[in-house]
């Protein structure tokens, strides 16, 4: 049984965070901070902002990333923007409204005090980023510009063209580099965390592999922060970067940290479909396209004609037919599920049969080609670059893609896991988005965690422990190093016939089929049967070239697949146990006639936290009940 003390401050939600900082948190004084060493794993928005902030406070920080520079982390690919309740538009925005939108969007499966704090800190993030030189879009008078995003009624999204994530990350990266120059932060690039070291019940450090030399080393610290992102790549194909993986989080789970809501996965309805078996990743197209595009597939599965030559009568506008009121603008998850449904029925288009048409023909006829082109110019160009098709001449092909994972390590209000001294921030924790994340909220959460929350809360733990209690001479480090090297040797000695890529692809197909857009009991049980079989096959038939004492990208990948294989099983298990639908988690057994998720608040208004019980043993489910004092439960409804 895990001890899950969420440390939520009591009393009204409005000033909870301030009261918590003032009354509940102990601080470390400036003279003592340099004595404490903090490890930060990951250098995306959360990791870089945390490392830079804590370095500037005077802590001794060591930051690790597997890329060649901290600037490469996948936060860089976020396009749309970042939310903040500045109310610059005077349209009634407020901390409360952002809190409400986020909690409702997450379908009431998040801890409301965390969500409120996120909304409260959102405005300070914009101030911080601008002070760093992030060039947000401005209006003619020189004031910051805003745009609106899905699921809300106000304009609160700040943006830098379509590259907001890049500019925010470069801001955090430059702050990090400032601290590296000041020698408060030591950066380890091309270094991958392979395990967590726990001694006397506390997280004491990590074991890493230098990806260039292959050398395995130990690093001890007074606290360890995981900012290692999401695990969408368990599906092989996702919009994540190729390197994104679950290893750091999963290893922490194996060492005793609880894993919360692993099955909560966000699937985006409009990405460019895979064009063949060789497809390595998916690229997102903005959802705004659905405003003018009509979605259809041919009625006849045997259809061979080019889309332009298919007459209206032979086109199946399935969203318009199935949902006459909302048509092509049904919510994300409904659009995604219907696309999969028609493709599974053999009506899909494109070389793989997994794609649907998004047709601008009617809009062009109606508004003229120039007008439509002007509205979607950069998106049309991006599409044409990838597919060589001009969307004004022939319909686009789109298909849903895995985009973001709301689940992650369980953390308390201080962002500490149940393992003392181990923290988790950004996408790698579970805390703020419930069962579904709203657009432009992920950047906000990473930066709230990294700039403002963790730098304060970490002092509470550190101040209660003397600095440097344990160093790498502790036998726990030798033990973990031995296990890590042992796994690498084991991987290299299988000497079978299949590449780790091929296993990863196969796992991805199982996950997509059985734990994807919609889930059901039989499918999940089948997934739980297939994954162990695949794992067995992996350990029998893996072929790995090269050795472990040099740059070996195949070895890196194989190690990540090992953890994805185990983790996929955990996801299916969680999805099976959560016998309700909520947000992105749709159990086919529980839906409204319109195909919307039907929650079961009686039985499932809790965070599902899994506890590792050993190899081949079923994990134990722990529950953190969720309270809804500030915002009473209500049905998620975007229709009226």
């Amino acid at each position, binding site marked *: 049984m895990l001890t899950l003390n969420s440390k939520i401050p009591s009393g009204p939600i409005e000033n909870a965070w301030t009261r918590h900082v003032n009354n509940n948190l102990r601080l470390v004084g400036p003279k003592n901070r340099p004595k404490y060493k903090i490890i930060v794993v990951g250098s995306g928005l959360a990791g870089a902002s945390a490392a830079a902030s804590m370095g*500037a406070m005077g802590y001794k920080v060591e930051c690790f990333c597997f890329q060649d520079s901290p600037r490469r982390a996948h936060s860089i690919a976020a396009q749309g923007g970042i939310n903040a309740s500045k109310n610059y538009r005077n349209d009634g925005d407020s901390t409360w409204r952002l809190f409400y939108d986020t909690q409702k969007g997450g379908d009431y499966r998040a801890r409301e005090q965390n969500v409120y704090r996120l909304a409260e800190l959102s405005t300070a993030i914009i101030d911080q980023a601008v002070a760093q030189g992030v060039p947000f879009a401005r209006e003619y008078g020189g004031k910051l510009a805003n745009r609106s995003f899905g699921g809300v009624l106000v304009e609160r999204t700040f943006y830098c063209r379509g590259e907001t994530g890049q500019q925010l990350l470069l801001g955090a990266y430059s*702050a990090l580099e400032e601290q590296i120059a000041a020698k408060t932060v030591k950066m380890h690039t091309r270094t991958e965390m392979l395990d967590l070291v726990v001694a006397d019940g506390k997280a004491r450090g990590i074991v890493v592999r230098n990806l260039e030399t292959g050398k395995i080393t130990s690093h001890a610290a007074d606290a360890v922060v995981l900012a290692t992102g999401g695990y969408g790549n368990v599906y092989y194909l996702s919009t994540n970067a190729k390197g994104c993986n679950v290893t750091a989080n999963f290893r922490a789970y194996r060492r005793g940290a609880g894993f919360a809501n692993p099955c909560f996965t966000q699937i985006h309805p409009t990405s460019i479909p895979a064009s063949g078996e060789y497809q390595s990743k998916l690229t997102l197209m903005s959802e705004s396209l659905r405003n003018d595009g009509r979605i259809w597939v041919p009625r006849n599965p045997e259809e061979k004609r080019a889309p332009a030559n298919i007459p209206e009568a032979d086109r199946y506008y399935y969203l318009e037919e199935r949902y006459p009121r909302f048509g092509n603008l049904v919510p994300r998850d409904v659009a995604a599920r219907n696309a999969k449904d028609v493709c599974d029925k053999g009506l899909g288009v494109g070389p793989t049969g997994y794609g649907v048409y998004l047709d601008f023909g009617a809009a062009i006829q109606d508004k003229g080609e120039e007008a439509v082109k002007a509205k979607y110019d950069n998106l049309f160009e991006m599409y044409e670059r990838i597919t060589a098709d001009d969307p004004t001449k022939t319909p686009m092909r789109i298909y849903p893609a895995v985009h973001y994972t709301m689940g992650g390590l369980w953390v308390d209000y201080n962002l500490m896991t149940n393992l003392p001294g181990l923290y988790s921030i950004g996408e790698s924790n579970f805390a703020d988005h419930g069962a579904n994340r709203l657009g432009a909220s992920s950047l906000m959460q990473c930066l709230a965690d990294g700039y403002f929350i963790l730098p304060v809360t970490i002092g509470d733990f550190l101040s209660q422990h003397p600095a440097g209690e344990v160093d790498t001479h502790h036998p726990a480090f030798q033990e973990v190093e031995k296990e890590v090297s042992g796994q690498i040797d084991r991987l290299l000695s299988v000497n079978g016939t299949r590449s780790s890529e091929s296993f990863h692809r196969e796992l991805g197909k199982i996950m997509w089929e059985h734990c994807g857009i919609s889930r059901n009991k039989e499918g999940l049980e089948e997934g739980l049967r297939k994954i162990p079989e695949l794992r067995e096959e992996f350990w029998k038939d893996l072929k790995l070239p090269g050795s472990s004492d040099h740059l070996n990208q195949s070895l890196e990948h194989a190690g990540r697949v090992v953890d994805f294989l185990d983790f996929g099983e955990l996801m299916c298990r969680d999805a099976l146990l959560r016998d309700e639908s909520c947000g992105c988690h749709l159990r086919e057994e529980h839906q409204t006639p319109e195909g919307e998720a039907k929650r079961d608040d009686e039985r499932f208004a809790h965070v599902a936290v899994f506890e590792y019980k050993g190899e081949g043993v079923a994990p134990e489910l722990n529950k953190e009940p969720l309270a809804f004092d500030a915002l009473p439960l209500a049905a998620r409804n975007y229709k009226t």
Partner: protein
Amino acid sequence: MKIKLHVWRQSTRTDKGRMESYELDNVVPDMSFLEMMDTLNEKLTIEGHDPVAFDHDCREGVCGMCSMVINGEAHGPKSETTTCQLYMRHFKDGAEIYIEPWRASAFPVVKDLVVDRSAFDRIIQAGGFISNHSGPKPDPNSIPIEPEVAETSLDAATCIGCGACVAACPNGSAMLFTAAKASHLGMLPQGQPERFDRAQSMVKQMESEGFGSCRNYAECEAQCPKGISIAFIGRLNSDFLRASLLEPVDRRGEMKSQ
């Protein structure tokens, strides 16, 4: 499609390295260039050979990780396109393709097509930031910025730090990279206090890393996947010149000890 590849193979930093040739006959025009490389690596792995090491991550043209000189051009033949956004339909059936790593003495080869670009991080450490602590800041609308300035600053800030400018330059100069960062910050009001110090210290670091001098070949701009203009180099030169005339003193150390 059938293609013939000539790829730079180098097992370690000290290995001399050589071009090796491979033939692939199952290439599809809709494959991305890196998916073609994946296919090659899958084949090499199954045949028991060492696959080709190359850097890549986001595969959507923004992380700056991918870095190949393709047929003599950084990121290949299509303008304003990273290697990961290049597709095989841009090549003819039967094409011979030469693939090399970034070649510049300041970017030593780590293995095959992977190079060490840490020099770029050190240039940023020398001043590619606005000194800041996390905490309360003035409301951004209290310092209005003309949209024109914000947009031009963003044009510079769009740099993905891939290093194509260095690979494209006959002198292996990092001026476009350095100028892009110095201009991004130097144009904004927030970046003014450190503007001239920044220009000087970033250029000094760039020179000490072994990058060559800028001779206005403009190859960097031509091969930059983000189309960053060499006008920013002019800006940096002017800031640098002014900084030299002003003989600024970096007071950073002294301030700290006050």
